[in-house]
């Protein structure tokens, strides 16, 4: 039997020698060009990092390809980032240019640093998950194709972080992204009552509902859904296979905007609803691509230097954001969940 509880490999074995030597002793960095960082340590040693966009879904051949490059240019060391980009760690400056050349030839995009869009954090979608309202990889590919130049150039007012989650579980943690793409359902789930009574824990299903839309029906040992109250989150489905929520006709995508995570300048913020629904239109989701493009472009055109999406919107006001982007404001934008009250406008200050 296998050893258990050994834990992950010790990171120390994975660090390139230049890092081991300068661990905790870096002094500053600069962005040499889009996708290339230069870190300088206290004793003057240098480390070049080349950041490469990745689709995240990699086959073993792709990984071996990356390993080959690392062997050739980085003494066999590399890392991945918290947004799933690949980082080649070049300690020998002379190898930088050849690596970039080779990446260019192999069509690996170099970028994602500074005031650019980085990789879209995303999720499984139809590739592997059982609850998605849309696919993840396809939308990400289509959107990144469209925004490609903003990955390889640092021409944005500030960093732009897009995330994508294929259902309300939000494994892509889209809730604090400059732009969030979120798969949503729009119809209350169908309950296979007989099956519920057999294979589901009814109290668990009832407790799962954020809006209290599920009543137990103890007589028939099943549950009933109050369709007026259901907000289609799918949490009951997660708890019970006898509940169906996926619907090819009515599932689709919502766009949230203006979130951020860093504490730089302004506190972290949630992303907020911009577009309640866009249709699922595979393979390239043109409506989603266009909507994201529009928001990014309006931001580029109006934001001040250094202003993240949410900082910009908070400065100009949400009423102006809707006006500038041409996105219609609807009753759906008005919160009616637990913490709704603090989102209401309790002042006469607003723009026309």
């Amino acid at each position, binding site marked *: *039997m*296998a*050893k258990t*509880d050994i834990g*992950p*490999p*010790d*990171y120390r074995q*994975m660090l390139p020698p230049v*890092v081991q030597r300068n*661990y905790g002793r*870096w002094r500053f*960095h600069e962005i040499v060009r889009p996708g290339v960082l230069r*870190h300088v340590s206290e004793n003057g040693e240098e480390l070049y990092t080349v950041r490469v*966009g990745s*689709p*995240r879904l*990699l086959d*073993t*051949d*792709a*990984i*071996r390809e*990356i*390993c080959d490059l690392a*062997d050739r240019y980085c003494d066999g060391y590399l*890392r*991945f*980032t918290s947004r*799933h980009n690949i980082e080649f760690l070049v300690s020998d400056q002379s190898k930088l240019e050849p690596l970039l050349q080779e990446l260019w030839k192999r069509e690996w*995009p170099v970028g994602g640093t500074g005031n650019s869009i980085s990789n879209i954090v995303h*999720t499984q979608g*139809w590739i*592997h*998950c*059982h609850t*998605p309202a849309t696919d993840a990889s*396809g939308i990400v*590919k*289509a959107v990144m194709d469209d925004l490609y130049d903003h990955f390889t150039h640092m021409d944005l007012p500030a960093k732009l972080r897009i995330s994508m*989650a294929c259902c309300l579980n*939000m*494994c892509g*943690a889209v*809730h*604090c992204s400059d732009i969030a793409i979120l798969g949503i359902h729009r119809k209350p789930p169908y309950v296979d009552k007989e099956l519920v009574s057999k294979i589901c824990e009814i109290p668990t299903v009832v407790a799962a509902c*954020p809006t209290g839309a599920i009543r137990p029906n103890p007589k028939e040992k099943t549950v009933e859904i109050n369709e007026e109250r259901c907000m289609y989150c799918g949490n009951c489905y997660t708890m019970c296979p006898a509940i169906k929520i*996926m619907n090819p*006709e009515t*599932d689709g995508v919502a766009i949230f905007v203006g979130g951020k*995570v*860093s*504490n*730089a300048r302004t506190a*972290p913020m*949630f992303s907020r609803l911009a577009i309640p629904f866009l249709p*699922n239109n595979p*393979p390239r989701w043109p409506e989603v691509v266009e909507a994201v493009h529009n928001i990014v472009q309006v931001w580029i055109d109006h934001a001040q230097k250094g202003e993240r999406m949410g900082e910009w919107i908070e400065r100009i006001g949400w009423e102006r954001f809707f006006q500038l982007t041409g996105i219609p404001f609807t009753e759906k934008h008005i919160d009616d969940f*637990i*913490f709704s009250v603090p989102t209401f406008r309790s002042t006469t200050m607003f723009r026309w």
Partner: protein
Amino acid sequence: MANSKTPRLDELEKGRWPSFVKIMKRAAVKKPAAGDLLKQLELSYEEKVGHWKHGGIVGVRGYGGGVIGRYSDRPDRFPNVKEFHTFRVNQPSGWFYTSSALRQLCDIWDKYGSGLTNFHGATGDIILLGAPTENLQPCFDELSEHGFDLGGSGSDLRTPSACVGPARCEYACVDTLDLCHTITQEFQNELHRPMWPYKFKIKISGCPNDCVASIARSDLSVIGTWRDSIQVDPQAVAAYADQGLDIQGEICGKCPTRALSWHPERKELEIRREECVRCMHCINKMPKALRPGRERGATLLIGGKATMKESAFLGWVIVPFMKMEPPYTELLDLLRRIFNWWDERAKNRERIGELIYRLGMRAFLHDVGLPPVPQMVARPRANPYYYWRPEEVRSNG
């Protein structure tokens, strides 16, 4: 193209961003499972609906988590993905690898699985995408033999992760990698054997830039910070000015507390230490001139999570400053108290943030023994509904 079996997905081979479809197609050549996955995905693109059955509960001996079970709902058409379970393999701290470690993984995965992976999952694990049930145990055995272990899943401690930190970042105020590794090792049992009301996530960032998004994505967020003054190299400041950086506008003007004054005559940047809230902005803009202070440690925040079910929470400050040095006893002890407090009180599937919201921050702080300080709140309560412990009322007469 006309008689391609995946006309829809083929569209996603176009464009400049690396194509996952190309990758899947390549994998399909070697692996029937990858081929069937591609075809099932094409069906999803056609029908606009997923084709995986609900749930699936599989695993390896001795562990309750680490494998996500998955079964196709069309095993008739896609027999090679009838069973298509994924492993969550615990990444090394900071996602650093040697090429030989990666190759080893690839070899194992070519042997037992679909050859497809995610580098990485959204929690930070290495995701090995798709293996049949019978391969799970042997695959795990071999992973383990080569020094890899599984990450978390289910109602357990989820795989902690950390930003690159001192390994390559001059801003790191704590040793994120070491801390992440230590916590992961310390709580192996909690990570592998679900025993709690729900998942618990820990993420560690070396400074307030929070490059692992810990404040939004972890039940316990550790963020490096400092207590003393930003370190200034006056010459380097002047050099930035000389190079044309608009220090007044871009730096001082955007300091959230107006803690900075720029004296252009003297080319001097003045920092009012007691006003600085350590947002990192000025340091980010002038990394050659400014550095975090010397008295370093971390701020701890609790409760961060996504939207389900009481809505998303950002982490809430519970410890403004804690020294973070090995063996991290203070933190590990606190973690144990927190786990315990939550485990004893939470309902099934109640994240700790939701529990604190339900029972009140007061109860939490009191029970885990953290003193209330104003740094915990953006502002005090606006309502008069606060509790008096009977003993207080007696003594206040």
